[in-house]
């Protein structure tokens, strides 16, 4: 599955547009990590645990989007966008969406 945030694929033609596909995960924070984070709030600096957590979640969201695209017979997802929002206290939603297409 080709995933890209360009509107085209260089050197290849889009045969068919299949519409919007999306994937999302809602992740709550780990209590242990939250305690570490509250210490970091005194010292400042990077919260490595959260960087990793959000990266893993984002990958999962992409995987879900790819599964959805595969299910409708696409072989690429173009014009992909990310969006993050905190939906509840201590939980973040990672959302990814794009256009499923069939490439020639």
């Amino acid at each position, binding site marked *: 599955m*080709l*995933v*890209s*945030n*360009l*509107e*085209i*694929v*260089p*050197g*290849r033609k889009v045969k068919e547009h299949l519409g919007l596909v999306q994937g999302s995960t809602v992740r709550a*924070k780990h209590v242990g990590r*939250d305690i570490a*984070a*509250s210490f*970091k*709030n*005194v*010292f*400042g*600096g*990077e*919260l*490595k645990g*959260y*960087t990793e957590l*959000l*990266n893993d979640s*984002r990958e999962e969201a*992409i995987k879900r989007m790819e599964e959805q695209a595969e299910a409708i017979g696409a072989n690429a997802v173009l014009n*992909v*966008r*990310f*969006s*993050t*929002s*905190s939906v*509840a*206290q*201590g*939980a*973040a939603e990672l959302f990814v969406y794009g256009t499923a297409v069939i490439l020639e």
Partner: protein
Amino acid sequence: MDALVIGMVLLFSAGPIAIGLVSGRILERRHYASIIARERQRGQVLIFSQRLPPPTLPAPETRLVTGSMVVSIDYFKRFVAGLRSLIGGRLNTHESLLDRARREALLRMREQAAALGATQVFNVKLETAAIAGRAAQQGVGSIEVLAYGTALIPTDPR
């Protein structure tokens, strides 16, 4: 007895501020040194915010690349922000925080692109989100910056 109570109160309120001031400064300086050193390296992946790459032959392979960083403000910065919100105006302490996070996210994206053998990244987008937590109740606690774009990996000419 009163002096002891006042002393304790001062210690508990001023302690984290002083720790934040010192450690925040040190961490920020160290981070900037590392960012500047990495940005100056030669032969880096070029990044563009343009939507489309110029057509080239042979057509390159494309791949989505991302880079992100979650950064937390220190206690001193939060204290300064609290004071600032009384009179308004520029918040230098937060400006440098966001600047660092953005540049780091872009550098990580470039590193990922370089590992794939790419030479350019097009349609670069930056996203900023406040991560909710205990600190978020008092305004900005930790911030996540995400940079993403499409890496162009040159293919061998046939």
